[in-house]
């Protein structure tokens, strides 16, 4: 677990052990409840050759907002939306959950 101030240009790749390099192409990225809190995606997400990303939005995030955020992410890396759902857990309200497959 890496302690870091996740600024928009924070280089995630530098923290990943080099021996994992070949396995990153099948990696799953969890991008959970992050974008709406900080206001951006990390640009270095695009530099990691992940296979799937799980995007979780904010409470009661509208479909339009989610689409807007994902377009923002698309400028960083190309992907396809594999599936979407909304769910709630604990003390939170409904949230969108989107599975992205790297194109």
């Amino acid at each position, binding site marked *: 677990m890496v302690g870091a101030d996740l600024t928009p240009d924070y280089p995630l790749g530098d923290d*990943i052990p080099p021996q994992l390099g070949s396995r990153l192409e099948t990696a799953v990225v969890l991008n959970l409840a992050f974008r709406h809190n900080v206001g951006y995606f990390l640009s270095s997400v695009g530099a990691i050759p992940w296979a799937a990303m799980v995007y979780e939005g904010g409470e009661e995030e509208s479909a339009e907002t989610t689409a807007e955020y994902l377009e923002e992410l698309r400028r960083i890396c190309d992907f396809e939306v594999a599936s979407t759902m909304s769910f709630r*857990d604990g003390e939170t309200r409904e949230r969108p959950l989107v599975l992205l497959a790297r194109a």
Partner: protein
Amino acid sequence: MPQYRRPHWRAIILGLALLLAVLSIAVSLDSRLDRPLVVSLSSEAVHSDADWSRTLTQVASDAALLGVACAAMLALLAARQRRPAVLIAATFGLTEISAELLSMVIDRPGPAVGAVSAAHSFPSDPAAEVLAVYGVLALLVWRWVGVRGRISIALGVLALVGAVSAAPVYRGTEYPSDVLAGWLTAAIAATVAWRLFLPARAETAPVGFGRGWGRLGGPVPPGGGEAVSLPGLRSTLKRVPGAVFLVRRGRRLRSELNAVAHSLLARAADALAGAQARRRFRSQAITRQRAQVPLAGDLEGLAESLERRGVILRRSPTSIHLSSAVDPEVVVGEIAGLYGRDATFKVTFEEGGAARRSLLAANLLYMRGLAPRVYDAFSLTGEGRSRTAFVLEDSFEGHASPEQRASTTASLNTLFASGELAPVRGDWRHAEHFRPPAGEGLDSARYLGFENLKVPRPRAVVKSVLDRNARKELHYGDEYALKGGRYLYQSIPAIGATGRRNSLRRWAAIRSMLDGAGIGLRSRVVLDIACNAGMMMAAALSEGATWTVGWDLPEVAERGRDLLLALG
């Protein structure tokens, strides 16, 4: 056009309330404070039984005042002036309620100089009620009349209120201070009601009945006033002194109770999810890996087999250490490539639960600085047998001095004494338990024989990690007094610690989505951006992910690391 100035509501109300408070305290300290004044004023009335005072008292009777108030309200409603009508009712009601409450608190009997006095004379009901009704009526028509009209109204109301209020004092049934308190009570009630229902605004008020409260009284006649709607309940309540404070406190309490209720529900849901689901978070999955060497026989046989293949190793009573100087792929296969150059391997004859037990002990020792970090654990299989291989940080830093060794031993003894750690078998002080593979014949200051130890109460270790500020660092933003201050963002299912997020349900949603797309986690790398306590990483590891990397703020990551280590 007359200017309608914005009064200093708060100052007026607080000033009046302060005066009333001072007066109340004074009469509480000496209920006969102004009795001499009553005696001197009422002496004539007592002897003459003045009828005029009785008449004035009847003018201020409840029935009379109610009749005047209702007539005024009906007239206003007929003119579509709803809010002024409500203002009259509210002022009268507030005055009655306030006077009743105050009389209960002060409990001051009348002076009983002449006529029969009231049991509770403070504040004076007639004084309060007459001022409330006629005073508000005067204020309502104030803007519709010119200077002469205002003077007439002011004098008329003063005379009426003064006379009606003075009558009980003259008859010896109330004190002057009761009258003053009645006026103050009515003034406060009227100001609050006015603030509530006729919000002031620095605006020009059109003259003319039907326009005076264009902003407040509903539809505005064509050509008159500005077309505005009635203020909503929220904006109206905001004008009541103290209402914002009370509403905020109320919301806070609601939020607190909500959080507690959610915690109870989440706890119940976690309990229903069953112990099996909880155990999945207790430790990472021990994945299976085919051994490259024969595993049959005992530890000695395995060591000899490896040595015949040229593998440099060192034997301890319960394990075999493979030196990082050799290629570990010879023994554990390609999985060895997952770990860095600083990794060494330790093969034990433990399996399943015993391996998890050792992992918890090793992590506890690492957290206390007494042992190297365990990167991973996996099961080596072959020839129908399985052994557990631990991947360790190669931490040998040279020969330990007697002092260093004594310090480590003392720390271990402390852990044993506290019950956090317990030996499984044999003598844990055996020198071999301190010897790393690369330091042939040399002792390390750190303890490597963790397979000989166990953590009797693993939940207690997790809880102690949480109690060392982790609850604060791993918090969700709000602080809840009823939940002990800040509380966890992610729940920790292994110990039943609730959080804002239910980790089990959250992972279940993620997992169902991944399953739906045919994405399994076994042998995958999982990267968790803003991982908080790392419960999603723990879930991924428990489902067979090979490696996880998570990021969060430094203080959060530090606590999350300890938590994951404590969870195994």
